[in-house]
């Protein structure tokens, strides 16, 4: 090697034809792909977690002496995973469009549609999860002769089955509240998990719109 690095640099770039700027007519091509891939990846991880929980729940409930509640939770989780998987697969039918802007916009529409369907499902599944949780707690708590002890200690309390009436009322009110707030809880839940990446999609679309206006 004869030249110094300064000379290599200078002489190399003197007649260099490769310093031609690449075309930037599809600026967001890679970026939109990355965003969509990230959402897909997160959905997949979420489905895996739900499936794992569906296996763990019955085992956990078995030790709590509430196997049926465990099975019920597992079935509910598996149904959620199945529905989630169906929705995630529909992403492949998305209109790729002529540009990355079209693609990202159809992805955004898809995302909103998925979230509104999720809200509808959550309206019923969240109260059910809640009831299963209450039932599990009651089963675990009711292991000993607690009902007979309560009978003795509070003879005035009305029992329906082996459960005090006030407990039925509290559980009922809480389930109704759960039913009422389920969509809000679902939105909060989704925001917690995917908030950042959803914001990214919206930011990118807004920026692309701004960019388009200038062109």
């Amino acid at each position: 090697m004869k030249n110094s690095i300064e000379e290599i640099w200078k002489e190399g770039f003197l007649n260099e034809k490769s310093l031609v700027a690449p075309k930037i007519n599809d600026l967001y091509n890679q970026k939109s792909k990355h965003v969509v891939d990230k959402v897909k990846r997160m959905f997949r991880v979420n489905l895996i977690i739900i499936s794992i929980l569906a296996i763990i729940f019955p085992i956990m409930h078995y030790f709590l002496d509430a196997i049926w509640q465990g099975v019920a939770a597992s079935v509910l989780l598996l149904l959620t995973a199945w529905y989630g998987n169906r929705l995630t697969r529909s992403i492949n039918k998305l209109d790729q469009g002529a540009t990355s802007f079209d693609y990202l916009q159809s992805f955004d529409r898809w995302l909103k549609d998925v979230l509104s369907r999720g809200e509808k499902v959550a309206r019923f599944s969240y109260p059910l999860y809640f009831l299963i949780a209450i039932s599990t707690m009651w089963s675990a708590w009711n292991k000993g002769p607690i009902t007979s002890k309560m009978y003795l200690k509070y003879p005035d309390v009305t029992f329906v089955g082996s459960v005090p009436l006030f407990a039925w009322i509290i559980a009922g009110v809480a389930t109704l509240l759960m039913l009422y707030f389920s969509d809000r809880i679902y939105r909060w839940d989704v925001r917690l998990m995917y908030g950042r990446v959803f914001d990214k999609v919206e930011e990118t679309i807004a920026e692309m719109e701004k960019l388009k206006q200038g062109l």
Partner: protein
Amino acid sequence: MSKDFYQISILPFAAIIIKICRAYTNSQEDFEDYYQEVCLQIWRSKDNFREQCQWSTWVYRISLNVCLTLLKKSKRNGQTYFASDVLPDVILIENRAFEDESLNQLYVAIRQLSEVDRALILLYLEEKSYQEIADILGTSANNIGVRVNRIKERLKKILYEKFN
């Protein structure tokens, strides 16, 4: 981004952006990604330009920031970054971005430096003064000379080993 903005404010400085992006990427695809992201970032931050420095200095600064950020991101996402001497043949072939073979070799050597050292040597080779280098990198000008000499020695060693 208006065509005028691209043609007036970016295109005349495309060589700077290309030189920097090439030092931080190992494939044509990555290079184009980095180049586009730099252009976008220049456009996004055009309103922040306060004319306290030259536009070219601004372009250097943004180019380096974007490249360093993207490199950090790709490392965090687990995308393997090869030290250039262990690059698979395919990437090495793709990486012959310039017609001048010595220049290609110099770039292979530069890519073996740390991210900041790469920025430093690129600015030095672009004949920026130590003060300008310090301004662009946001450091003090005190040790720039010593660091540049150390980096040059390292590059010479890498190139010497390659050519002999």
